């Protein structure tokens, strides 16, 4: 006669490690992988802070999304410790995990002990529909989408690079998009600045961008900064954001942005375009090089086409702006290999992408130092470039 369910469960529990919630709490603090195997509706009422969610019914198909290394220790829990014991057996016997344990007493005992509980916030039915293609991705899912909705991204310029970046970041559900631009829409912008429209020629770019974004996704709050970024305002604006998207058209402000972002430890996703060529990199302070490590001094005016208007093929800022938006999303979700310490060069005519390594400069005047030691007076220190540019024209 085959053994009863209770008997099988007892046998399983004999074979697997069971750990007390107090120990799991310590393990969580040390960054252990803890997986909640309950159903979606149970997870929704609250879970262990920092736990991942893989319902037992989807264990086999979804476990790889949270644990790829089978030798990594994994702690499972459910409501009472029974389903997690079954799930532990599956992980060990069917999927080859080496160190799996099950939390005694499950979430019920955890709560009875008065330990901290995290209650996930929930998306509306409309949001679940809107972001359904994100929710289907292991790399995003509900948790990732919530991170996007909580994120605050600052776009420097609603121009060539900022337009496509803003559109796709808005579509992705970035909760707050700040836009810095003091310009108005000009007919000559519309060949590439696709967030604006013919009927908005003469309208301020921040207002025009806001209208398009609101029409695309009402989840996004647009913060309009109708000004030119400068030493007098950068330290008021930047601290309100998690990531900056830099499409600046001049060197002095790029250096200013670099210095302020290093001091505030805010990553900058930077791109530049000219003609048929684009450059892209991510400057994440203290994890990789900064802009001054890459270019410690600006080029002279004759090698700095940013001094005046230059031709650009209209699709190029689209390509580069979307690569920026992609890096932003990767940074928010902590997925993939961000373009930190690498610079990507796109040659549209040759249809080639070349990447080179960028190193941190141990003697960098800015990022080799403690951020708190960088003073206001040092931000954006730069040769008299405007005079230099003026001399050229």
């Amino acid at each position: 006669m085959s053994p009863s369910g209770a008997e099988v469960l007892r046998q399983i529990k004999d074979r697997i490690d069971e750990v007390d919630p107090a120990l799991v709490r310590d393990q969580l603090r040390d960054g252990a992988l803890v997986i909640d195997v309950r159903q979606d509706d149970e997870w929704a009422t609250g879970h262990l802070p920092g736990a991942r969610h893989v319902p037992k019914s989807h264990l086999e198909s979804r476990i790889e999304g949270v644990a790829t290394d089978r030798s990594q220790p994994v702690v499972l829990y459910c409501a009472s410790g029974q389903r997690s014991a079954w799930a532990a057996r599956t992980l060990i016997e069917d999927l080859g995990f080496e160190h799996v344990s099950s939390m005694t007493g499950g979430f019920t005992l955890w709560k009875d002990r008065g330990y901290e509980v995290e209650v996930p916030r929930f998306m509306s039915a409309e949001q679940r529909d809107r972001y359904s293609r994100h929710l289907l991705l292991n790399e995003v899912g509900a948790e990732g989408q919530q991170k996007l909705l909580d994120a605050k991204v600052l776009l420097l310029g609603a121009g060539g690079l900022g337009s496509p970046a803003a559109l796709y970041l808005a579509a992705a559900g970035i909760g707050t998009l700040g836009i810095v631009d003091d310009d108005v829409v000009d007919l000559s912008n519309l060949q590439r600045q696709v967030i604006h429209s013919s009927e908005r020629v003469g309208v301020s770019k921040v207002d025009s961008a806001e209208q398009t974004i609101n029409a695309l996704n009402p989840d996004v709050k647009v913060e309009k900064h109708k000004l030119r970024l400068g030493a007098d305002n950068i330290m008021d604006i930047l601290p309100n954001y998690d990531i900056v998207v830099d499409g600046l058209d001049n060197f002095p402000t790029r250096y200013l942005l670099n210095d302020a972002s290093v001091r505030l430890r805010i990553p900058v996703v930077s791109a530049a375009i000219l003609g048929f060529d684009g450059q892209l990199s991510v400057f994440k302070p203290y994890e990789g090089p900064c802009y001054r490590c890459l270019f410690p001094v600006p080029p002279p005016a004759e090698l700095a086409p940013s001094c005046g208007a230059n031709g650009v093929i209209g699709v190029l800022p689209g390509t580069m702006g979307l690569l920026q938006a992609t890096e932003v999303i990767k940074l928010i979700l902590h997925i993939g290999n961000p373009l930190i310490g690498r610079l990507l060069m796109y040659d549209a005519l040759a249809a080639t992408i070349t990447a080179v390594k960028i190193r941190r400069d141990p003697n960098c005047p800015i990022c080799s130092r403690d951020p708190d030691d960088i003073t206001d007076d040092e931000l954006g220190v730069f040769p008299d470039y405007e005079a230099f540019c003026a001399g050229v024209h």
Partner: protein
Amino acid sequence: MATIRIPPVLRASVGGEREIRADGSNVGEILRAMAEAHPETQTQLFGSDGDLNRYVNVYVNDEDVRVLDGLDTPVGEADTLVILPAMAGGSR
């Protein structure tokens, strides 16, 4: 002969080419050969001291020559030199 990738701002100085080839067994020889063939690039690449200008980065394949042996970095036939001056330009 190594291949040199020419950045947009220098193309006018090399007859509009995106890539050129030059002789030499190290970075310095190759860039000097290029400057000889295209004299306008001399002051764009080199300072009066004969060293690379600090605003120009040069890579052998994907590595910055400054972390290799600078102008003495050996370059093989199949290697590519990438010249990278700073670019701005985007929002307007």
